[in-house]
């Protein structure tokens, strides 16, 4: 009671960055980005050297040539946004609130088959690090399970004007007849309820036919092609069971797809592995030679040192090339043009919204996966994995398991994340990646922390530059993740 405190200001939790010779701050507790004028930068710089009382800070600013009233106003602004804080009270740790049991679904990933005609060596579903336990389970989803899934989605998404279904596999097109039926059924059911439904699928493109391409185009179905690049890189690991590469088979099909399917974006999803790290060459080939609208890259998910894992040197090379493409992205943005490097576009979209994630993604929240046998899972990466089943389409969500999964994956449950400034967008990283690497979906993906921070900083600097030099361009991104 007698221990009175002198309140001193210190900097709030933030990441400062600089772009086009201006200063900005990213406020971590909010996910908010502000541009700082000289006075604000000066105030934060002084507080970076030492904590100060209010009169001390005012005096310091006056010394720097700012008027008293201006200094007071500045301090007030910084305090209101929590750019500077003076609370000596340590707040009790926020309770881990799991979302209510009736949190509305927004999307389902339907794993319509777990069979695949390729044997890509790094596959998370079939390779050395697989977690799926498909023995004794159905290989192809039945129409009844699929229809139940659609009904489930529409019922569990009450209140949402639009929902989404993604078709996945195995190789999705091995069950194309079911895909067609589901699209018809779901469209009809949604219309009857006065709601919108959209579709997408991921495929290896080996089974594309004219009929399929036309169907996808006529029904506005988004397409993601899992592909690793030009022939030598594609055929290194994306092979048939006999070891033969798949490039020659997919090339003509892709050209047709991109030429004829104009109603939705066609994106390429590249998995980077040892020896397949030439990001720029891959990007040029997929974007310019083949004509994909967007290309996204991800290093392979691996438990430790698999033969296909990228080593530390490999990752440095990858990141350097990511930076080159990021510079290009910025140049395009300043001209008002969209660039196809998804890794930047996605992050910029999230920064615009000011996301502040409680969980790394929507798995188990607005998104659920359904396996061919009807088992529910947090997402497609946990399909057919007994360890992570969240119920069954017929009996519904197992709320206890769902809450366990979500509370484990909450960013506040990850001690390593608690002081990291990049946590609003990262929240510890992919649940599946964590499980493969550390055996625990709630483990922070420590192996990526430095890269994530560096990458987020890169995207923030791009954001700062575009907001300063071509702010209208950012408004185009506001609708990127519509719904």
């Amino acid at each position, binding site marked *: 009671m007698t221990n009175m405190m002198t309140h001193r200001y210190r900097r709030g939790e933030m990441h400062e960055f600089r772009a086009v010779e201006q200063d900005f701050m990213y406020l971590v507790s909010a996910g908010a980005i502000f541009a700082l004028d000289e006075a604000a930068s000066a105030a934060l710089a002084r507080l970076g050297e030492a904590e100060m009382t209010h009169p001390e800070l005012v005096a310091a600013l006056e010394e720097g040539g700012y008027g008293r009233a201006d200094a007071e106003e500045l301090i007030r602004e910084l305090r209101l946004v929590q750019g500077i804080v003076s609370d000596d009270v340590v707040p009790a740790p926020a309770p881990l609130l799991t979302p209510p049991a009736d949190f509305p679904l927004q999307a389902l990933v339907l794993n319509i088959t777990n069979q695949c005609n390729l044997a890509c060596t790094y596959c998370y579903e079939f390779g050395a690090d697989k977690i799926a336990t498909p023995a004794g389970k159905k290989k192809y989803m039945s129409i009844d399970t699929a229809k139940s899934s659609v009904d489930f989605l529409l019922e569990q998404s009450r209140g949402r004007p639009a929902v989404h279904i993604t078709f996945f596999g195995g190789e999705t097109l091995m069950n194309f007849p079911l895909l067609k039926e589901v699209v018809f059924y779901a469209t009809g059911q949604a219309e009857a309820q006065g709601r919108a439904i959209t579709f997408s699928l991921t495929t290896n493109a080996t089974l594309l036919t004219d009929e399929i391409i036309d169907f996808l185009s006529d029904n506005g179905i988004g397409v993601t092609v899992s592909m690793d690049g030009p022939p030598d890189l594609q055929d290194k690991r994306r092979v048939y069971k006999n070891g033969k590469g798949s490039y020659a088979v997919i090339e003509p099909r892709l050209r047709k797809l991109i030429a004829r399917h104009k109603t939705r974006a066609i994106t390429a999803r590249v998995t980077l592995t040892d020896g397949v790290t030439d990001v720029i060459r891959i990007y040029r080939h997929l974007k310019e030679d083949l004509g994909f609208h967007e290309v996204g890259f991800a290093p392979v998910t691996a438990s430790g040192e698999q033969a296909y894992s990228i080593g530390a040197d490999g990752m440095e090379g990858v990141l350097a090339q990511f930076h080159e493409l990021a510079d290009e992205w910025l140049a395009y943005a300043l001209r008002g043009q969209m660039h196809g490097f998804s890794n930047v576009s996605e992050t910029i979209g999230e920064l615009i*919204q000011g996301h502040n994630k409680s969980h790394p993604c929507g798995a188990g929240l607005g998104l659920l996966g359904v396996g061919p046998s009807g088992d529910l899972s947090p997402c497609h990466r946990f399909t057919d994995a007994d360890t992570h089943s969240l119920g069954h389409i017929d009996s519904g969500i197992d709320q206890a398991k769902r809450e366990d999964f979500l509370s484990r994956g909450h960013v506040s449950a990850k001690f390593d994340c608690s002081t990291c400034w990049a946590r609003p967008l990262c929240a510890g990283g992919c649940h599946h990646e964590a499980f493969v690497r550390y055996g625990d979906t709630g483990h922070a993906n420590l192996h990526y922390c430095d890269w994530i921070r560096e990458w987020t900083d890169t995207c923030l600097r791009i954001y700062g530059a575009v907001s300063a030099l071509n702010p209208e361009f950012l408004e185009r991104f506001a609708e990127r993740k519509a719904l």
Partner: protein
Amino acid sequence: MKHLRPLNKKAARIGEMAASVTEEEDVVALQQSPGPRPHVPMGCTLSFSPGWEVDAGGGTAGLCQPVERDIYDCYVTCFWPVQVPDHVNYSPDWASNCAVATKDWRNLDIVFP
């Protein structure tokens, strides 16, 4: 806001909230909800003496002595950690910035042991 320019949607919302704060309350009655900010009550309001500060009915009419006289009780029975400023021997300039109490009471600072 003059010095901070919001650049994303979250910042815009914070900016709006900041702009709507016209008067910052630095004094709140404890009976009222102090608001969302952490509120640290100062001084002897951290302890509560029922019967002394309020009577059985929750008012002050039935107290054995009025609260205005409680400074004596406070320091004699050692509620205060330091001597009462008495303008002569102890903290003689405690009220030097407080010419008109109704306006300048904020300038009365806490006395430390």
